């Protein structure tokens, strides 16, 4: 009957591309994230050609995006430092937003794969782990760059016996970033899949709208938190 329209519940199965030395990569994640990055880069490059005083066409939209990421960085880092970390925050925001929305909007399930299925790249825990580790490297290097060796004073504040807690916090920050994004994206897709397997028509639509909204909110939260962590160490 309609079963060919339903997707199976697949968590943790991937399209493995094997290399001779024992390494492998997740094919569908790499393909979809390459697609997202290509789309974003071409959109940004195309939109920023011949900028004008009075914006027209795509420049309007680019300016809205710029205002949004600028306000995220500005509110967390203050006027004197936000400019040098704006590219990082903007990259994180645009990539997470692009991949979440690409996973929610584009009907990837129409394409059949041998194993696994096309979905948002953030559906794979490796992508989110990479973003989270990048964030923690970013705030570490931002602190070292701006405060120099005095950065390490942060670990014994407000009192020396806070040292273990502050060190543990360095590990829990990327962990919570990682699980938050991964869990939210997977939860959205799982909810939609389960409801689709019960009632395939009409009923899943509001849930899909909710998923679209939640995935853009997650991008905002990831970028806000990355900016807040950087702002915390350089203040």
């Amino acid at each position, binding site marked *: 009957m309609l079963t060919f329209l339903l997707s199976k519940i697949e*968590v943790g199965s991937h399209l493995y591309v094997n290399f001779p030395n024992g390494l492998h990569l997740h094919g569908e994640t790499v393909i979809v994230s390459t697609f997202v990055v290509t789309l974003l880069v071409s959109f940004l490059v195309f939109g920023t050609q011949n900028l004008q005083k009075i914006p027209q066409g795509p420049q309007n939209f680019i300016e809205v995006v710029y205002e949004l990421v600028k306000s995220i960085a500005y509110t967390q880092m203050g006027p004197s430092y936000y400019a040098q970390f704006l590219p990082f925050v903007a990259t994180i925001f645009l990539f997470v937003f692009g991949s979440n929305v690409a996973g929610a909007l584009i009907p990837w399930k129409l394409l059949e794969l041998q194993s696994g299925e096309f979905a948002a790249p953030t559906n794979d825990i490796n992508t989110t782990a990479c973003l989270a580790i990048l964030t923690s490297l970013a705030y570490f290097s931002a602190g070292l760059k701006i405060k120099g060796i005095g950065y390490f004073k942060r670990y014994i504040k407000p009192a020396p016996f806070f040292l273990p807690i502050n060190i543990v916090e360095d590990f829990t920050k990327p962990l*919570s970033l990682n*699980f*938050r994004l991964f*869990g939210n994206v997977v939860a959205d897709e799982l909810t939609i899949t389960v409801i689709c397997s019960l009632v395939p028509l009409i009923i899943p639509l509001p849930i899909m709208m909710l998923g679209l909204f939640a995935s853009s*909110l997650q991008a*905002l*939260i990831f970028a*806000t938190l990355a900016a807040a962590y950087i702002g915390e160490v350089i203040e």
Partner: protein
Amino acid sequence: MVDSVIAAASVIAASIAVGFAGLGPGIGQGNAAGSAVEGISRQPEAEGKIRGTLLLSLAFMESLTIYGLVVALSVLFANPFVG
């Protein structure tokens, strides 16, 4: 035999994880939404700002539930104790 015991324990563990992870954030989200409604009714002109902050903090609370869900998913689909 051992595998079926592990499977049964995993299912129970997953349901308990999701159930309890929903409890605390549910109470917290209720409190936050209640206070936001109070704030809006006291000061209707601040609605936009209150809504933005509310959504952001709701998403933070939601993430605690999601941690429980991640644990449940890993117990169900990537259980380290099976085979």
